[in-house]
């Protein structure tokens, strides 16, 4: 840490360089070690506490199986193939719904953010639909699409759509006037302005929305699989709960958590590659 000394007589402020400034490489290494330790340590401590509580009988291991039991059950379910089917069904529904919802959300967001008349025409309707709990639409989708994959994919798509649409539209509208002015100075026409100024400026926020939507997509599909169907991780979780097979229920919960994190991270990584000009989360946090 830098130290400052104030010499009252001369009114001169002297600032000595701190350790981090004298040895920036070492400081960065120490910081990295601390961050990794915290990132790995906190979940490990929680898991350790859980394992201890379950294994030592502080909590009923039949209701709250220990992490090692959950891992063992998960391994068994993977080995006998029962878990793969549920993972596949849920993942396929999320990917399909996410792709459709994202494409539609970007399309509507770009159109409404760019053309005032389209925004005026569609925004009240979409705002009204936005506040409808998406799960309440499931019976309507069941009637529309029957009992196959359609209703669940549609539910995910609609949920993702609203996140992406609102963020895209607001990002386009919120592009700073300075960017637009710079584009005009370079003589950009309407398409060039859209292609080279508005979209690049809005993309980082669009990817943030997609990351949020990726997590919410899992929330929605789990609930939908609970209500309708005979497979998927949501079905596994709630059916195991109903059957009082709690270790399988926890396996489902853990797999959903892992899948959700992996999917959101994947979207973030793609976002970082596509929007190299935008600061990363870590950069933002340190700024």
């Amino acid at each position: 840490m830098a130290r400052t000394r104030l010499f009252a007589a001369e009114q001169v402020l002297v600032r000595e360089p701190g350790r981090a400034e004298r040895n920036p490489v070492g400081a960065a290494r120490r910081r990295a070690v601390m961050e990794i330790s915290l990132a790995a340590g906190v979940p490990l401590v929680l898991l350790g506490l859980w394992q201890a509580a379950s294994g030592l009988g502080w909590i009923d291991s039949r209701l709250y199986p220990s992490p090692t039991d959950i891992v063992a059950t998960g391994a068994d379910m993977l080995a006998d193939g029962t878990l793969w089917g549920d993972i596949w069904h849920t993942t396929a529904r999320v990917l399909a719904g996410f792709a459709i919802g994202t494409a539609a959300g970007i399309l509507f967001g770009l159109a409404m953010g760019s053309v005032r008349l389209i925004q005026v025409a569609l925004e009240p309707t979409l705002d009204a639909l936005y506040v409808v709990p998406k799960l309440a639409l499931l019976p309507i989708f069941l009637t529309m699409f029957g009992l196959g994959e359609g209703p669940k994919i549609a539910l995910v798509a609609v949920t993702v759509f609203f996140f992406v649409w609102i963020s895209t539209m607001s990002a386009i509208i919120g592009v700073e006037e300075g960017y637009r002015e710079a584009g005009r100075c370079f003589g950009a026409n309407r398409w060039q302005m859209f292609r080279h100024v508005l979209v690049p400026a809005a993309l980082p926020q669009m990817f943030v929305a997609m990351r949020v939507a990726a997590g919410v997509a899992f929330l929605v599909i789990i609930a939908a699989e609970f209500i309708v169907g005979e497979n998927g991780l949501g079905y596994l979780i709630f059916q195991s709960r109903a059957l009082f097979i709690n270790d399988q229920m926890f396996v489902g919960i853990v797999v959903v958590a892992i899948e959700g994190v992996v999917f959101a991270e994947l979207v973030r990584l793609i976002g970082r590659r596509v929007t190299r000009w935008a600061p990363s989360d870590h950069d933002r946090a340190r700024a």
Partner: protein
Amino acid sequence: MRARRRGRVLLLPLLSVSMLLAACGGGDSDSGPDSSFTPASAGPVQAVAGCENGWTDPADLSPDRKPARCEPNTPAPVPLPERTKLVVTAATPKAEFIAPIRWAIAHGEFEKENLEVELRQVPAADGLNLLAQGDTDILVGSPDAGFFNAVNSGFGVRWVMGNFSAPPESKTGVWARDIDGRPATIADLKGKTMASVLGKGSPIMYPIVQALEDNGLTFGDVTLQSLPAADVVTALINGAVDAAWILDPLWTELEDKPGLSFLSGQPPGEPLGGVLFGPNVLGEKRAAGEAFTRAVVRTINTAFPGDYKADPAFVEDLSKVIELPADQINRVPSLIFDWEIRGGTADRLQEALITTGALSYSEPLPENEVVDRSFYEVAVGHTS
């Protein structure tokens, strides 16, 4: 100073790993606090006036068996020396099968036993967890796969009373769409989709599996599709599914519909649901459990002994008690309330649930580990 701080940070994973190792070796994760549950012993059974016909042989599986009945207003109340509270949960309190319990609450039958009964609506899976942990005392529902798995895990829960058997006129059961212009049969369901509100862990799997096997099919020959109650009938009518298990009173909507037929229902004279007691009532609150059972049995003998829907005034009262419209109650015939549990029902339920893959074990648990008839035997004074 800095080195100490870094050391503390690095200590986190080390600490957790050591805790993890300690816990792995420190306890047997397969056993829980209540894994060796033993119910409290039943007291001496004494003959009860008015209940001379209050018991039937559990081995009697004849479809036309008359359910056990005592005289009205018997067995007489035996108030507990101290007022005791029992928390009862049910997934669907607004249902006819729970009528005797709600009638007993409304008409003070539990009060006569010095019992305070609080009925709460809780989803079945949550209700079973609460019951098994001792957070509630009684669950009104059914011995489903969750119940059997809980018993197998060592939880102190038992099936202590039946609820009802379906009247012969009832068409609760499997309905199917016509095939090739003719009414379908069970054998036609091979490769078809069957919808149900209740999943593969429900007791209705027993009649479904039995009907399939009686017709040369296996459970794997049909695809079971879980659907919300409101959508089952619609899905069957519009052809989204080929067959469905239709509950009371929804089947009455299908009777006049062309192209649909009723294939099979619940086994006659054999209740598949009822009352589950948890560790509290099976243990320290046993006397309260006996009082609860006595009040329910007395209510059945007094208010629901036979065709209780023959009296419109009674149906009006019932409508208020169970919060269902009278015309909805009148759409289906009177249920045959039956507090007894037939011999072998628990075995047959478990065998069917093993077939559907809903149980975490492969051999049925012995009946005496899942069924406890002693509460209603004490209530009616069954001494033979």
